């Protein structure tokens, strides 16, 4: 119904797909600040949101953008921002606020080369660790990394579902190439993909605690103006939302931030494998780098190399258990990690492989994508 503006099958850019995915997920607020290569998301939202009764605002900077997004979410509206490296850095303090205050929201980072202004129009995957550890303090982060335009749509919907389910900010890590690449997408019909909305309280206001420690550790969330008057603060707080200095309450709060995600990681993990059944070697890649890796694996298979592909779509939390299991079941002797950075995810893989497995790397950080031939060559070089 609400989708009369989205043709069913269409050639579109990754950035456009993110915007459409957000609308599909029920996002009705976007606060952003223009930055290459993410700007088309803001432009798409500026066009679409008022038609859907939503609100778009161009804020004065990225700090304000994410702040306004958190404010909108607290008021009960699904909200998002989109940016790239420099803007993502500026947002970090308030992303930490969203972790602490447990406010669902989505941040799309269309990655470009860095540090600093870096390479505004060139591809990179160098914000992988920023998505995990970008803001100060201890917390558990969720991030997804689409590898195609269709996945930009689907993973934006997932990002919203995860943020609403876990009451936490979620980052979608796209990049310059996926953001600008055009592919044919079958736009899902309403109802085709799951859309999850935050759990609301079903108790009277006197009994409501905005940060209640529930069995699944996620507290039902009332919005401002609904009769539940509570306090939200970025100071470490008790279950009612009031600042605390009590060591027990502090630890409870911190544990909540961790375990509400780590204990339910199964709901979050999305991992794709190809040709791992008989593999003695794997290529480990995510996001844009996984596209070339997939082709390279096929090329090596033609040369009878028993190589497979492991591709996490949810990169944070890292799929520890699944990777360990895969590596052992498949008796992988070499894991080749290909990334468009100087080596970030490789350390996570290193941490998990059994002793008999060697970890190799292939990295590009010159603003170009890895092509299948160079990955194929590297496979042939390092294969067991």
């Amino acid at each position, binding site marked *: 119904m609400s989708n*009369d503006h989205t043709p069913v099958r269409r050639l579109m850019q990754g950035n456009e797909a993110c915007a459409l995915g957000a609308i599909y997920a029920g996002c*009705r*607020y976007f*606060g952003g600040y223009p930055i290459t290569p993410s700007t088309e998301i803001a432009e798409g939202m500026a066009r679409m949101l*008022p*038609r859907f*009764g939503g*609100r778009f*605002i161009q*804020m*004065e*900077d990225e*700090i*304000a*953008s994410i*702040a*306004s*997004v*958190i*404010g*909108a*979410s*607290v*008021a*009960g*509206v699904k*909200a998002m921002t989109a940016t790239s490296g420099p803007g993502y850095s500026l947002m970090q*303090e*308030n992303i930490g*606020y969203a972790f602490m205050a447990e406010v669902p929201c989505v941040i799309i980072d269309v990655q470009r080369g860095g540090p600093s202004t870096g390479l505004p129009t060139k591809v990179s995957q160098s914000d992988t660790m920023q998505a995990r550890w970008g803001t100060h303090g201890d917390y558990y982060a969720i991030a997804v990394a689409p590898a195609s335009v269709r996945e930009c749509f689907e993973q934006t919907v997932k990002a919203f579902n995860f943020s609403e389910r876990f009451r936490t900010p979620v980052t979608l890590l796209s990049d310059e190439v996926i953001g600008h690449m055009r592919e044919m997408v079958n736009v899902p019909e309403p109802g085709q993909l799951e859309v999850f909305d935050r759990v609301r309280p079903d108790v009277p206001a006197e009994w409501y605690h905005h940060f209640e420690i529930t069995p699944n550790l996620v507290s039902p969330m009332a*919005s*401002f*103006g*609904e*009769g539940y*008057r*509570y*306090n*939200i*603060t*970025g*100071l470490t707080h008790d279950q*009612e939302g*009031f*600042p605390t200095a009590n060591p027990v309450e502090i630890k409870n709060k911190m544990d909540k931030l961790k375990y509400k995600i780590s204990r339910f990681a199964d709901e979050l993990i999305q991992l794709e494998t190809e040709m791992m059944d008989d593999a003695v070697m794997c290529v480990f890649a995510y996001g844009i780098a996984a596209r070339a890796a997939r082709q390279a694996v096929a090329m090596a298979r033609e040369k009878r190399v028993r190589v497979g592909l492991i591709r996490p779509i949810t990169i944070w939390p890292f799929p520890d258990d699944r990777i360990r299991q895969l590596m052992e079941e498949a008796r992988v002797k070499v894991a080749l990690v290909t990334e468009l950075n100087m080596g970030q995810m490789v350390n996570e893989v290193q941490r998990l492989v059994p002793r008999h497995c060697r970890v190799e790397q292939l990295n590009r950080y010159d603003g170009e994508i890895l092509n299948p031939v160079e990955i194929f060559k590297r496979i042939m070089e390092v294969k067991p």
Partner: protein
Amino acid sequence: MTKAVQHSDVTHQYLRIKKRFPNVWCAGCGIGTVMGSIIRAVDFMEYKKDEVALVSGIGCSSRLPVYCDFNTLHTTHGRALAFATGVKIAKPNLKVIVITGDGDGLAIGGNHFIHACRRNIDITTILINNRIYGMTGGQFSPTTPWHANASTAPYGNMERAFDPAALAIAAGASYVARGTVYHVQQLDKLIIGGLQKRGFALIEAFSNCHTYYGRLNKEGDAVAMLNWMKDHALPVKAAAALPPEKREGKLLTGVLHDVEMAEYCDEYQKLVDRLQTKQEA
């Protein structure tokens, strides 16, 4: 006397009495007085507690919302107006009130401040100007007077001060007023004026931080600083009749600016309505 008792009855209905007291403020701090004024203004407006959202940044002043029984959002340093913008746009029928300090609102949050004024979004902002960073122990702020002392200006402040009201007027706010924590009844009225305004309203509440500003500048205790306000405040209307030399060194109080302008949320609603009627047609 009876009046004072009445006042305290009203404020008590709106405080999180059982939960949050005693408060973090020094005895005699002006921030509590501002809190009383805000509550009386809300009560006068007959707002329901549920429809009021109090949003603040970080600082002694920004601790104010935590004590009040409204929807309260204590955010990050300097960003209250940016958070409040999201709250207001997402739920325009909420009465959004921002509490900020001179450091919070004008230094780290200065950019958000001018842009919120420029958008003329319907937020009532109360800037508690104590001319210093209270919470962090007395460093100079954008409103610390030239040559005044602060812990980070041990030889006197070399920077000139902002006039928050003039800044807000220049940036496009539709209602700008200044009061002091000595002139409480006037402050109540100025805040009511801000709440009645459809658009961005700034009320600068001149306050005392005797603990730092007073001590470092030999201005005495809370009472001495209140007496200073009593002696130096000059209502704008009275000022108009005075020659410039008589206005020198005075603190202009009252409504400094009040105009009717298109409000941001109203304008956006018009856009939504226009696009949706077009869709239906």
